[in-house]
Every structure is written in structure tokens, then in C-alpha cells.
């Protein structure tokens, strides 16, 4: 006689809410990204392909805008690791998005040096202007507003990172205008990093 409770070992038993469902459109790298991927993998020892998981996920995110289960599956297959290994990484790092983001992801630095120079008010102004709270995307899918931790540009506070580019010294009063400028002119409206700008001007 067994004391083991009767278990329903059928097809549904192992289904957990966290299992990776097919989600989003089918995903494979474009030929260009595949070529980039093949080049990146060579930086690491042959038996350490897993090291390339961060750059590989970045490639997927640049291709599709966010990371789906299908993208995770594709990256895992190419690197020869499990999907859980990739999901583990994707869920840990804040720069990987698991849902579609706006065309411009406004990331306002909220940590001390930016905060004492008005970052909280920048977030407020952006929030009012866009009608969304931090963490949300506006209905048109143009802007996502995020509060992020120290961006490493404390001398040009408050700093906002828009996608991968910086906008420095954004005073609260100028925040609404930045939204209009981005809408009208795209990323060229950003100030960029002052070091780069100084280099370009002179060079």
C-alpha cells in the first residue's frame, strides 16, 4: 500500500504559470544580426559560448524592440544553453524589456546627484505632459517613461537617457519641450553626451 497521494501525471501536470509559452511572432535573427552574433561569439573561448548571452539578447532586443519567449528560445538554441538560462538573465538585467516599449524610452535618472538637481520634478513634468505614470507607455506607443537608477552622468544632472542616447542638464522647465522636440525631430533633439559633442565640434 502506498502512502503517496494520487497524482495526475498527465500532460497538464508540469504546466506552470512560468512555463515559456509560444509568445509573440516567430523569431529568428535577420541575416545581418546572425552575422554579428557569429562574430561576437568568437570573442569567448569555444566552450564558453554562454558568455555571449548578453550581447545576443541585445541583438534580439534591437531587432524586435523587446524580448519574447520566442527570442529567448532562439538565443538559447544558438548558444547551446537552456531557455531557462536565457530567461534567468533577461529577467535580471533592467535594460532588457519583456513588453513592447514606446519609440522613445525616456529614462530619468532618479538617484542622489540628479535628484538634488531636480530629477523628481523632471519626472513629474514628463508625466504630466505625456499623461502617463513612470513605467507606462503612452497610448500612441511613442513614449515610455521610466525612472532609472544612477546613469553615471552626475556632473550633468539631471540626466535622461532616451533609448541609448543621453540628454544632459534637463531642467524641469525644459522637460515638456523635450517631448515636443523628440516628436518633431527624433533623437537629434537630444543634447548627447557633452564629451562626444565637444569632440565632434572640434574634430
Amino acid at each position, binding site marked *: 500500500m502506498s502512502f503517496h497521494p494520487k497524482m495526475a501525471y498527465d500532460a497538464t501536470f508540469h504546466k506552470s504559470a512560468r512555463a515559456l509559452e509560444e509568445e509573440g511572432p516567430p523569431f529568428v535573427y535577420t541575416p545581418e544580426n546572425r552575422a554579428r552574433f557569429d562574430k561576437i561569439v568568437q*570573442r569567448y*573561448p569555444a566552450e*564558453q559560448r*554562454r*558568455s*555571449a*548571452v*548578453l*550581447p545576443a*539578447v*541585445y541583438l534580439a532586443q534591437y531587432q524586435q524592440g523587446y524580448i519574447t519567449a520566442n527570442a529567448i528560445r532562439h538565443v538559447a538554441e544558438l*548558444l547551446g*544553453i537552456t531557455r531557462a*538560462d536565457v530567461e*534567468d*538573465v533577461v529577467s*535580471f*538585467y*533592467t*535594460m*532588457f524589456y519583456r513588453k513592447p516599449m514606446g519609440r522613445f524610452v525616456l529614462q530619468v535618472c*532618479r*538617484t*542622489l*546627484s540628479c*535628484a*538634488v*538637481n*531636480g530629477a*523628481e*520634478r523632471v*519626472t*513629474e513634468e514628463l508625466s504630466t505632459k505625456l499623461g502617463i*505614470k*513612470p*513605467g507606462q507607455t503612452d497610448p500612441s506607443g511613442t513614449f515610455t517613461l521610466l*525612472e*532609472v*537608477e*544612477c*546613469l*553615471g*552622468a*552626475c*556632473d*550633468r*544632472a539631471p540626466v535622461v*537617457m532616451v533609448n*541609448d*542616447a*543621453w540628454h544632459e542638464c534637463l531642467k524641469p522647465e525644459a522637460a515638456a519641450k523635450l517631448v515636443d522636440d523628440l516628436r518633431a525631430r527624433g533623437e537629434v533633439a537630444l543634447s*548627447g*553626451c557633452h*564629451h*562626444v559633442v*565637444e*569632440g565632434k*565640434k*572640434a*574634430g
Partner: protein
Amino acid sequence: MEPILTRYVREPNSFTLDFYVQHEGYTALKEALGKKPDEIIEMVKASGLRGRGGAGFPTGMKWQFVDKKIEPRYIACNADESEPGTFKDHLLMERNPHLLIEGCAIGCYAIGAKVAYIYIRGEFFHVQTVLERAIDEAYARGFLGRNILGSGFDCDVFIHRGAGAYEAGEETALLESLEGKRAQPRNKPPFPAVVGLYGKPTAVNNVETLCNIPLIVHHGPEWFTALGPEKNGGPKLYCVSGHVKRPGVYEASMNITLRELIEDRAGGVRDGRTLKAVIPGGSSVPILLPNQLDTQASFDGIQKAGSLLGSAAIIVLDDTTCMVWLAENLLHFYRHESCGKCTPCREGTDWLHKILRKIERGDGQMRDLDLLSSISANIGGKTLCAFGDAAVTPVVTTLKHFRQEYEAHIKEGRCTLPADWRARQPAGVH
């Protein structure tokens, strides 16, 4: 002291190989390749160079500890610069990238590594572009790659981009991240010098540390030591931010005092305001008060004053700053960045933040202050890495020096110092 590391950063083409070579660039690499690797380690030891990332550990010793019997060995350059208030490596990589590449190559030669990985934080995308171009240039001219300058020495430098994790700046977490895992620290010992990247001996060095290596090789250890007070030699980059008129990166010898840095270099606090507190080494170190401004801004000087030089990120706060708010702001950071591996830190930072938020909005009780101290005491020293100690520092240090502000918040049931630069409507937790 004339700037050395940042001497040419305002020159238009300072980041190009041509400019660098015209200004004695890569001569140190040539000189290094003419010496034995052990001689270089001895030079670095003699220079007394201390790691610029935060801990101030002597770099020469770190390199000596690298187990030379095991192949392959690696250099991992820590360019994850995420300590709040720090932005010096950013400037070096952006405007003087070849100095770092040269430092990496000499470092590899000294410890017998063939590969250096530069782990750069994900938010520094524009810096990465500059660095990638510089590396390509260095390969094209034979300063990297096979048989460098005909010496038979091979060295590759690769960039690895992080993706937004403060914890990746901890050396073992950085290695985990490089291996394609979550950036969570490992137990120490074994230290990376023995069991590091892929289980092989690895030297993990900060960007500014590696940038000092070519200087030591070229000018000699005596020159380097003479630049600063005893055991604190060499040029040092200071990041001054917060409530100052001219925030920025300032290079000085470690003879300089905090007062000179804040008042002379950075222009002091805004007009009509007075200095309230200084965080001398990034958000993770204890606060210093205005009467301690004449402290020498060296590793030992700041330690004597009861704080740490850390990454030399000097955050200046004027009298509009509410210290409860400051602790709340920083604990929001630590709560968000805790990697979640050790329970005291994962659970404790969130708990501390909740209590601080409660006090800040005026719903605190006196017994919360003891609770804050008690939780802090149960995080500090009880985690795998120094993050736990770092995270409780803002709480412990503000409670120590500004307990009356906490009490005023609780008694009056509101923030007693709401500055105009803060949010009009305090945001919800997210």
C-alpha cells in the same frame, strides 16, 4: 599638480590613435615589452598604486597573487562605473581610450594573460562606440593582436556590454556576468586572482587603475610615489557633483583637501546656501560634516576622518537637503539594485526603504528609529559582498549625525525640509 590622466581630454582629437601616438602614446607598451613580466609587477608594487575602483587595494599585490601556474589567465577591466556620484572612468574612456587599451595590454603582459575583457555598463553606449573604434585602430597599427610590436606577445581586448546591474561592479559578480549569468557575487575566498573568469586566474581592475599603469612603466615608480602623500601616490580623479556650482571631474594629487576640491575646483555651493554634508566616496560611504572639510582627500586621510575615499565620488549637499529624504532616496537605489542572492540584503533593503518612506511622509513612530538601526545591524557584514554594508551606510550615518531630523519628521508628522527641487507630489512606489 598638472593633470596627467586628463591632460588632453579637452583637445579635439584626444581619442584618436594619431593624437595619442603623437603625445608619447604606446611608448610605455614598447618599454614594457622590453622588460620581464615580473619586473613590471615589481614596478607596480613599488609605485604603491592602489585600486581606484573603491577598495583601494594595492594593484601590484593583486597581480602578484594571480596564479602563474595555471593557463589561461585573464584581465577583466571593470568599466561598470555604477556607484552613484561616479563618472570619472566615463571621461577617461570617452576622451582617452587608448590609455586604457595600453594599460590593458601591459597588464596582460605582466600577468601572462592573452585576453582582456572590458566590462562596460550598458548605459555607456556612446562610450562603447568610442572605445570600439579605438580598439580597431590599435589592432590596425599592431598595438593589439598577434605578435605585438614584433615582441611575440599576443593580446586581445574585447568589450562586453552589461545591461543595467549595479551589482556587476562587484568583482566576482562582474565575472559571473561575463560568463553569461546573473550578476551575483561569489563566495570569497577563493579570490579571482586564483579562481576567476571561467575558473581561471583573473585580475579584475578598475579603468582608472589600468590607466595609471602606462604612467608607472614610462615614468618609473619613484615618480609616481612622489606625486602624492605616502602610500597614496599618483594622480587621482575626483568626481564632484550635487549642490556645487561647477560639478565635474577634477584631477589632483591626493595631497588635496576636500575643501580645495569643493570650494576652489568646483566653485562651492550655490550662492546664499551653506554646506550641510559631504559624501566623499560614492553613496556607499559615511557622510562627513562641514567641520571635516580640511581632511586630506586620500585613501588614508578620509579613512582617518571616519569615512572612505571609495570611488572618489564627492557628493555635496547644501542646507536644503532633508537627510531622511536622502536616506530614502539612496535606499530606493539599493533596494532596486540588490541582486537578491543573500537574504539579509534582499529583504532588508526593501524593509529599510519602506520604513524610511513612512517616516519621510510623516507616518513614522519613534520606535521605527530603533528598528532601522536593528535591521541595519543585521545586514551589514552578513552578506557575501560589500553591498550589504554599502546599503545600510546611508541609514546608519544619517541616523548618527542627523537623528534630530528623523525625530522632527516623526513629531511633526511631515517632512520638515521640503526643498523646491523635490517632487511636488511624492511618487508612489514602483
